[in-house]
């Protein structure tokens, strides 16, 4: 039986806290054990929290447009820390400006994320995806 612990947080120099608090609430309600490292979180903090808690997924939020710079290399850091197989999700306003979603998604999947979500995605969508991804992994 794998754990149901997930790490959530807002990456980089981003301070958007509202969605983070809602995700915390929604994933907890959905039965996950949520380790919330809050806003202004570095890649190192995400990885450290995942290693320490034996998390099965890291959910990265980015609302302020610097997502591309902030997220690059996160998969490598996971591999270095021995958790290379962990699920990585990212969502929010990931790039500066209004951009077509598909190329943005591709950028983040190429970076090593398993899933990427456009602005305005409801928590239920990623909860369902995570449940599916976890059951397939077993």
């Amino acid at each position, binding site marked *: 039986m794998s754990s149901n612990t997930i790490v959530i947080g807002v990456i980089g*120099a981003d301070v958007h806290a509202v969605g983070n608090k809602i995700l915390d609430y929604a994933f907890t309600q959905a039965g996950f054990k949520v380790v919330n490292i*809050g806003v202004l979180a570095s890649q190192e903090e995400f990885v450290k929290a995942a290693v320490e808690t034996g998390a099965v997924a890291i959910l990265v939020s980015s609302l302020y447009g610097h997502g591309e710079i902030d997220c690059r290399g996160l998969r490598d850091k996971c591999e270095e820390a021995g958790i290379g197989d962990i699920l990585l999700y990212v969502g929010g306003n990931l790039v*500066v400006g209004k951009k077509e979603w598909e190329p943005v998604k591709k950028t983040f999947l190429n970076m090593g994320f398993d899933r990427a979500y456009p602005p305005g995605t409801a928590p239920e969508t990623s909860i369902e995806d995570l449940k599916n991804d976890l059951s397939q992994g077993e």
Partner: protein
Amino acid sequence: MEVVNKKWPIEKLFAQREEILKTWETGNEVADIKKGIEYQKSIPKAKNFAKKLKEAKENKVTLVQPRAGVALVNEHIALLQFLQDEGGADLLPSTIDSYTRQNRYAEAQKGIEESVSSGRSLLNGFPAVNHGLENCRKVVESLKSPVQVRHGTPDARLLAEIALAAGFTDYEGGGISYNIPYAKDVSLEKTIYYWQYVDRLVGYYQENGVEINREPFGPLTGTLVPPSISHSVAILEAILAAEQGVMNLTLGYGQCGNLIQDVAAIQTLEELAEEYLVNNGHENRQLTTVFHQWMGGFPQDEAKAFGVISWGASAAALAKATKVIVKTPHEAMGIPTKEANAQGLRTTKQIINMLKDQTLPESKQLLLEKEMIKKETRAILDATYKIGEGDWAKGAIRAFESGIIDIPFAPSRFNAGRILPARDNDGAIRLLDSGDLPLTKEIQDFHNEKIAIRGKAEDRDPSFQMVIDDIYAIGKGFLVGRPS
């Protein structure tokens, strides 16, 4: 460190600025403060923020101002010129990028370099510190209207030094409003101290004949903030700034969405601030107001977004705010194109012009709303003063520790986070849980009753789910988050 609300001797500022100017290489460009003052004096009156606001207040017009900033200087100038010429902006901003806001100038530098090589802005604002004095002056000189620095920086001392020397005539922020909603781990002792530096610097320019306007950030987290909370913070920051010699203040408020509450909020903000400033020995301050169009989540559909923008424009005009900060049809998607930004401005201006001769007539509801906002704000501020043993700076720090002031949905661990706001059945923002706010039974009962009416109408017990529904409601096309 104990921070007290007492005007700094100028030697204290001068001693500190030597250290501050060393924190990034562009700091030495502004070492001679006299040159900054001289430069400011050469700026024509029409490009001074405080003067333009004064004129607007006298003429009872509401000015429009966008948010905008990109990584590179020429592109930033082109953006602002576009908003001035095509958008009809009366006042201009330079919104600062998020790395600079956290004093991460090396990362901002990387963002500048990647923006040059990729041909698009990888930063969400203008990194003024990295660009330095001459580049910032180039921005100010390329525009016809006054320019303000807008940001979200807990420690904005170096940015302030560069901005003032470069000819920006307005500076947003404050020790509370740029900490609690914008930081996680920075104490209020520190940020109030950092902002005393900024206010003392502005005060020094003032003493040397330069009018600089200061604007505490009104909307805070922008998420269902009750007017009494944002008023308390705005008035506290006004008192702290005035003590350091700031003469021109614009106090802000973020739209709630219920017209009566919004108009009552802008009116009481000015009335209460005047009262508290005068009672604390700060007379003859120029007080103006800023109304922020809806700061929460927006609809993705641009047509619907224009609806939200228009409703904010209407409330700002009817409340007679001195200026309105404008949203764009791209709000749900992140940072807007310049065209979308100009559209938001033109939409707003059309409504402002149409409503300039109208006011919201006095009614029983408006008077009650104003009375309740005043009672609540006074309860919070008076408890703050008391717990500070007569010192507003100590009071502010202790009030946050004890939950006397509590900002909903703030990221800072120095905020209690015990209150829970929700809309009432008319869409006004009330307290579902008032945490440790020092409210009288009369005020508590008022909130409880209002929330109970909504719960009954929706046939559900008010809970955190109701709050979440309210947060998403406007994005989904409604003001009140009713169950489907």
